[in-house]
């Protein structure tokens, strides 16, 4: 047996020796964070060996003294029948994501591409020997529908059955309407009331969100989200590209996304809406270019190499059976068109859903996430770039960073003596702080003088206020600010913000601010000319705009110029289902942007350095940071 001590209790697992700890824990429903793909290079799956015998994978026994030893779970196996390990919270892969399905769109014009025809076809006589197919065409023509019908054999079989046993009420034909033709999905007797549903998916690098939509009226019937299960293998885009280099790796990532993530969400949605897979007639998926390719099993190697070109930008549609999605086998699956290797269908969706092209003047749209895409729109022109900000705003890579889920500190305010208030999602004791609280902390600590402009803590102030803590490891000690005392936290451990965390935030915000400045400069314009600043992506909904401005992440524009649109990617997928004109518009939109590769712009580096300070270095009349002091 293996005893696993967790932050909030312990679990006893069946365990046989010689199995990797990561494999054991995954099987028992406690997956560790194996983001490097169990290659032993990251520290995601670290656990503490407390009791029992263990060995390295290559067979060597692990010698440890009386002290617990920290090892990587993917490189360690049990060597005795019983043992005890401690799995810290940061090493566990949570499987429930925060619900990020909210969005605002332009005024939708409900006209779904899935069309329903009801007709009763008179039996043909000898004088009029029409085929079933011809009878259907005649019936539709009588309703004014004259587009050619692209039948498949399997749909014809249903038509034959339905017309041969036609009840008095007639039959129903559900089809996917394109501009120049109709694609029949199913035919059934009109006595059977069947609903027609659509599935909208936002496939993010970290989180996948999905909606079940009633295509009769556009209503959202159910919402769900889940971590993209690909993170079990690799957590950032670059490592996923590496992982997909082999055919087996590519197929594995496709399966993790389609079967383990999307299909599992669909089951939840159907359950909630009490519907069956056969009722899903249309599917729209938006994501970044790499994830969109992986969803279709297309190779992504070329996106990882200069000049970062994808296999395709405008994805042909396919059927749900081909895509492996639990829906009607002939349902159409449409992946939203992308722009370039690092500008995906999610950004095209953001642009479409926010209607930014119709705005007068200059607008900037940013998706404050790991890839940090930025679009500058002016008079129908679009200039885009990706700044690779990294995951700090999602709480990753930060000592006590967590995702914006229940238990996370969402907002924090400081005064002269320290924390004056904090808001925990769902109430209760906090487990860590999410991106929005990190932004609050850095800007508030700077205003109150706890933090210098280059991210150095004023240790004297902290000590006299009783807020100083020492963190880090023995060989790399760190100064830290005490945000919540262990007595007040979920795990009983102090929640700290270290100088290293602050440096991570400064790098991420510098990348975004420098990206925006570089775009403005390339477009020959400046902040004073920007009329609208549109914030897309889940993080922006939690962000306090005042804190973000004080930090220097966002510019100090009049507040009525800011607009938060939420999950624009999901909005774009939703509109693809509910507006027939969405897809052609998205296609047209995806061809407009001019892509700016930031590494080809020498000013970017200069701006990046300029923006590393709080709020930024402009004019260089900022103050000296507090003098560093050795940690003893």
């Amino acid at each position, binding site marked *: 047996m293996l005893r696993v001590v967790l932050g909030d209790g312990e679990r006893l697992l069946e365990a046989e020796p010689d199995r990797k700890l990561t494999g054991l824990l995954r099987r028992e429903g406690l997956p560790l964070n194996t983001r*490097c793909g169990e290659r032993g*290079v990251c520290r995601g799956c670290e656990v503490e060996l407390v009791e029992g015998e263990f060995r390295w994978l290559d067979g060597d026994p692990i010698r440890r003294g009386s002290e617990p030893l920290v090892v990587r779970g993917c490189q360690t196996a049990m060597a005795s029948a019983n043992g005890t390990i401690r799995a810290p919270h940061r090493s566990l892969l949570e499987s429930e994501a925060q619900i990020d399905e909210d969005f605002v769109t332009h005024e939708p014009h409900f006209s779904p591409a899935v069309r329903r025809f009801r007709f009763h076809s008179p039996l043909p006589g000898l004088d009029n020997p029409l085929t079933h197919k011809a009878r259907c065409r005649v019936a539709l023509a009588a309703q004014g529908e004259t587009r050619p019908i692209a039948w498949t054999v399997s749909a014809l079989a249903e038509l034959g059955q339905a017309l041969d046993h036609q009840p008095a009420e007639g039959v129903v034909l559900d089809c996917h309407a394109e501009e120049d033709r109709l694609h029949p999905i199913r035919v059934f007797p009109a006595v059977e009331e069947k609903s027609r549903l659509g599935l909208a998916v936002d496939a993010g690098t970290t989180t996948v969100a999905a909606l079940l939509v009633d295509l009769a009226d556009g209503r959202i019937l159910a919402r769900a989200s889940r971590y993209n299960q690909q993170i079990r293998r690799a957590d*950032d885009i*670059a*490592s996923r*590209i*590496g992982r997909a280099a082999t055919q087996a790796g590519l197929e594995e990532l496709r399966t993790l996304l389609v079967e383990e993530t999307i299909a599992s969400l669909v089951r939840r949605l159907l359950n909630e809406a009490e519907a069956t897979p056969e009722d899903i007639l249309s599917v729209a998926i938006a994501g970044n270019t790499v994830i969109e390719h992986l969803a279709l099993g297309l190779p992504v190697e070329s996106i*990882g*190499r*200069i000049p970062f070109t994808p296999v395709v930008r405008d994805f042909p549609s396919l059927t749900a059976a081909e895509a492996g999605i639990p829906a009607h086998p002939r349902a159409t699956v449409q992946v939203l068109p992308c722009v370039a290797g690092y500008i995906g269908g999610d950004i095209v969706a953001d642009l479409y859903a926010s209607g930014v092209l119709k705005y007068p003047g200059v607008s900037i749209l940013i998706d404050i996430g790991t890839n940090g895409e930025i679009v500058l729109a002016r008079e129908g022109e679009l200039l885009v770039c990706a700044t690779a900000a990294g995951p700090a705003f999602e709480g990753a890579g930060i000592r006590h960073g967590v995702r914006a889920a229940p238990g996370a500190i969402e907002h924090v305010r400081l005064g002269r003596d320290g924390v004056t208030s904090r808001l925990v999602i769902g109430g209760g004791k906090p487990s860590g702080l999410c991106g929005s609280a990190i932004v609050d902390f850095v800007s508030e600590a700077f205003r109150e003088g706890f933090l210098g402009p*280059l*991210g*150095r803590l004023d240790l004297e102030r902290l000590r006299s206020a009783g807020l100083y803590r020492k963190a*880090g490891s023995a060989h*790399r*000690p*760190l100064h830290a600010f005490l945000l919540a005392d262990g007595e007040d936290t979920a795990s009983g451990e102090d929640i700290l913000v270290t*100088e*290293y965390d*602050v*440096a991570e935030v*400064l*790098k991420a915000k*510098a990348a975004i601010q420098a990206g925006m400045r570089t775009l403005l400069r390339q477009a020959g314009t400046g902040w004073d000319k920007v009329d609208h600043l549109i914030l897309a992506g889940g993080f922006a909904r939690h962000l306090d705009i005042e804190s973000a401005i004080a930090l220097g992440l966002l510019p100090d524009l009049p507040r009525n110029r800011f607009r938060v649109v939420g999950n624009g990617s999901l909005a774009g997928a939703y509109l693809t289902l509910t507006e027939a004109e969405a897809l052609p518009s998205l296609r047209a939109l995806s061809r407009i942007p001019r892509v700016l*590769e930031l*590494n080809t712009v020498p000013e970017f*580096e*200069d701006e*990046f*350095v300029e923006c*590393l*300070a709080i709020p930024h*270095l402009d004019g*260089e009349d900022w103050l*000296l*940071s507090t003098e*560093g*002091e*050795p*940690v003893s």
Partner: protein
Amino acid sequence: MARNEELYNAVAAGKRRDVQRIVQECLDREGDALELLNESMIPAMQEVGEKFSRGEAFIPEMLVAARAMQAGVNLIEPILVKSGHKATGKVCIGAVKGDLHDIGKNLVAIMLRSAGYEVIDLGTDCDVDKFREAVEKQGAQAVLASALLSTTMSYMEKLVEGFRDRPDIPVIIGGAPVTEEFAEQIGAAGYGKDAGAAVHAVRRLVPASA
């Protein structure tokens, strides 16, 4: 010779404009700018590097100081060339094939220059041939390679392979995803987790020229 405290502090605090002003004033007076470099600027940069290595300064401070340093060096460079200043040694540095990140690499280059080395900057996206050329044609005594992507890291293995026939040329690697274990695994001669450590690795592996 005494150091110029104002200049020292300006470099350490990353005050680019102050650095430029002080250096320019000295040049205008036809003062000894080389001395400013050696006695004030380089020690300041080294101090920042040391602090960084001890975990008392972070990337923002380091980059800001390096940029101020570079601004001053740009003014002094023409004089340096004229004076026939002798370097401690000569190394080449580049970001490996497929990698376009160069902010960290540039920082390492500045620190090495501050430590008295001549640095051939090969830029980004460098293949083995490019590094070999710097060694064979320009006489670099060590190869420094930077990678910021987990996907380009694997190219470092090819690089080490490409210098297998030159045991006299140490290959030193670094960059955010690179670890000491990885360096050992691929047989690189040296590794540095930051710019200060890069200087130590070069000092250890490149024999100082007389």
